[in-house]
């Protein structure tokens, strides 16, 4: 997407070269180039060392009939038919279409109900800031240096966070991006998860999802490090540190491409991945003027900002965001809690929509993630009151396809397109109403939440034997 180039072949260097140099003590190994396949393979580090072990759980062929279907890409079908089969969306059609149904299909009457793709939250800290939110579990910010591109959120995710279950039961969340916090200018790699409990984080990792890089501008980095008496303590300091880091990353990448690396560097590997276009930048940034500067910085160093997160002032620069194909991931109307959130307005999403830019509704919160549908509906209402009428089906796109696009998984999920993952929510009413809730949620065709079946409600290890185990939440 977005014309990103594929990763050039590869980094070398690694420990082997270092060892040779040390033993030889002559620097001989540096200059000697051995490009034989065996040596290349030995030097080539594993780019996916903690691979996803997620496998779709078994499902049965399921046909939902009679419901209003929002397909996630702006389409709406009344009394539609949605067929989930072999873990995939098999067909989506109107009421009269002939469906090729397997003999053992389970038919669900969706009359009066609504179907959407699984909801996606591209800004979550579940697992890295889990419940209970005690110091011992607080693993979201490596706030010991202003740039930590070497840390990976997946190494902090606690797969037993009770928050995952609430996100599914109340919010219909099937996919979420877990980000490091925003204390650092460069906070580290994100990880995209299927919202499916597992013994291990690898068992939750979304197969094939690209990594993201969390960056932050504005108040947080300068406050955290300024208060420690170190750079950055100002917004100009933020940019200086960022730019110095990108200069290093470009040098590293050039060296890598020339086959001249002598050792691995976790931080630089990640930044080079961003420059390659294989790791997507997710940039926490509130103010319009700062976003505009970040877009120029991205041009300066040759990367793309996939989405600005918490972009409360995005409405001021919808045109710039559209031109750079950068999404604005926003709350509907949370506002005023810090200086850089002072100009937040509830019409942010509506004005962005009018400008033709990409809107994503995000949570950044273990409670908000349970109500992204309500947040989107609030934004829709606030837009309507200033004369911007946005069809329900387009609003649903803010919670599904647009998020999938922003984190680079739109070819796998985010809409009810045949062949995509069977990530589906059946709502007991219009999801854009405060009165509606998920009734059933499928992930890759497996029914993992069913409001009428207690045992299809996940209970994390932490909650076993605790008050309210298995309770409605």
């Amino acid at each position, binding site marked *: 997407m977005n014309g990103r180039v594929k990763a050039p072949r590869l980094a070398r260097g690694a420990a082997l070269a270092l060892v040779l140099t040390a033993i030889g003590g002559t620097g001989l190994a540096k200059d000697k180039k051995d490009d034989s396949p065996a040596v290349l393979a030995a030097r080539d580090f594993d780019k996916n060392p903690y691979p996803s072990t997620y496998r779709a759980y078994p499902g049965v062929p399921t046909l939902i009939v009679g419901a209003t279907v929002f397909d996630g890409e702006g389409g709406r079908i009344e009394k539609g038919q949605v067929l989930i089969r072999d873990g995939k969306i098999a067909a989506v059609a109107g009421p009269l279409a002939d469906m090729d149904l397997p003999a053992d299909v389970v038919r669900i009457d969706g009359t009066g109900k609504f179907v959407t793709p699984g909801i996606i939250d591209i800004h979550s800290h579940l697992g890295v800031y889990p419940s209970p939110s005690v110091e011992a579990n607080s693993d979201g910010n490596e706030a010991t240096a202003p740039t930590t591109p070497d840390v990976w959120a997946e190494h902090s995710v606690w797969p037993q966070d009770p928050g995952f279950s609430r996100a599914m039961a109340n919010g219909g969340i099937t996919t979420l991006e877990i980000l490091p916090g925003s204390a650092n200018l460069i906070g580290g790699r994100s990880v995209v998860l299927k919202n499916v409990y597992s013994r291990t984080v690898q068992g939750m990792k979304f197969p094939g999802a690209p990594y993201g890089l969390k960056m932050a501008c504005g108040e947080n980095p300068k406050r955290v490090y300024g208060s420690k008496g170190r750079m950055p303590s100002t917004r100009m300091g933020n940019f200086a540190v960022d730019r110095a880091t990108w200069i290093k990353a470009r040098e590293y990448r050039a060296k890598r491409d020339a086959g001249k690396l002598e050792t691995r560097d976790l931080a630089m590997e990640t930044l080079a991945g961003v420059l390659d276009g294989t790791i997507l930048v997710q940039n926490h940034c509130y103010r319009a003027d700062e976003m505009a500067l970040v877009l120029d910085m991205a041009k300066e160093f040759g990367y793309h900002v996939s989405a600005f997160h918490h972009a409360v002032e995005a*409405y001021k620069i919808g045109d710039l965001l559209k031109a750079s194909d950068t999404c604005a991931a926003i709350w509907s109307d949370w506002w005023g809690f810090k200086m850089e959130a002072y100009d937040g307005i509830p019409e942010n999403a509506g004005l962005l929509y009018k400008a033709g830019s990409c809107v994503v509704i995000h949570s950044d919160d273990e409670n908000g993630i349970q109500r992204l549908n309500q947040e989107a509906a609030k934004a829709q209402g606030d837009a309507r009151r200033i004369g911007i009428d946005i069809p329900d089906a387009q609003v649903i796109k803010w919670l599904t396809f647009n998020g999938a696009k922003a984190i680079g998984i739109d070819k796998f999920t985010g809409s009810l397109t045949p062949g995509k993952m069977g990530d589906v929510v059946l709502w007991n*009413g219009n999801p854009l109403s405060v009165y509606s809730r998920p009734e059933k949620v499928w992930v890759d065709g497996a029914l993992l939440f069913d409001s009428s079946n207690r045992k299809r409600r996940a209970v994390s290890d932490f909650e076993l034997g605790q008050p309210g185990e298995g309770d409605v939440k």
Partner: protein
Amino acid sequence: MKRGLLFGAAPLALLLAAPALAQSIAITHAKLVIGDGNGPIGDATVLIQGGKVVAAGASVVVPAGVRTIDAGGRWVTPGLVVAVTDLGLVDVGAVDDSNDSAADKSLFSAALDVSAAINPDDLPIQVSRAGGVTRAAVAPLGTTSIFGGQGAIIDLGADPDAVTVPRAFQYVELGETGARRAGGSRAATYAVLFNALAEAKELTLAPAGPRRDDVLLTRRDAAALVPVVTGKQPLYVHVERASDIRMVLSLKREFPLLQLVIVGAAEGWMVAGELAKSGVPVLATPLTDLPNSFEQLGSTQSNVGRMKAAGVKVSLGDFGDQPRYAPQYAGTLVGLAKVPGASGLTWGQAFAAISSGPAEALGMGDRFGSLRPGRAGDVVIWDGDPLEVSSGVVRVFIDGTEQPLTNHQTRLRDRYSNPGEGDLPKAYEW
């Protein structure tokens, strides 16, 4: 005793002046919500005279000469009442100099009087007013003690007289937060509490006399607790855990005059029977459903519904810095009622839980919170079902006076409705 504590009190006459400016108005053809727990009444009228509701219902006769507003079938409700917020204390939470909600370097605690810090012009008040919030209970201050000071009841009118009742209640932390402040254990919390109340009791015997030389509270702090221990001022207690709630209810054995209100109560459903029997009002955080701390392991969104069903006087409160979210939370609890196995609220109960319910918990049920005769003329006209998230506020009246709904946010909205620059920079568009 209440006069001249740490901060000067506003003169009483000023506090009661607001209704004098109010007009008489009738809002007709309304889908009218009284706020008493019932659903809406179709094609109804609310009549306000002298700033107060005179009549509300389907067969109200509008006297000649009264200004009439035709609601055109729109929803008309009492203004929202939000209990336990920091409204009026904070411009921007993370800007310390603008934030009066923490007094953790103060030598005083229970004596602190929130009303002295209220700024009726602050932006959160304006934004909340535009969201239909007309009254609020403001508390507590973050102190080094378990006592958060004396809370105030305010209105959100665009006038200088925000404070309806100063020193309306005392606030105390008796859960994890209280334990931390008292010395690290709930055992310490209760030692501090019992000692403080005992020192207050001693003061009632000799208000101006010498005190023991081993007292721990300043005279002002002890004096501030006299109305608490004598039952003249309610004590708001923040607790979440079931066992903490039980402990709070047992305080009445030692101090029978205490007027308790429980705030938070995430595990209230686990002690709903005892709470109902006690008659103690509960201002519950509406949607807490995660074990965010070890004192709320039993959290569930069904908490409020279960307490309501058990007969607890429960309403919504204590949900932080965005009071205009009250209808969203109340509406969510209505939707919850449809989930198998869950307990929610009916529409009427849910609206009451953000209007008359909190007003009654504040002891103000006869002053505001509903459109029953005699209550303040606090009225909101909505463009849809007020509990539905896509609905918005059309007009707001407080004490019968129509309120401005423009603010920094609406001005930004108007300026950027066409984001491109014109012949002059944006800064000239105002």
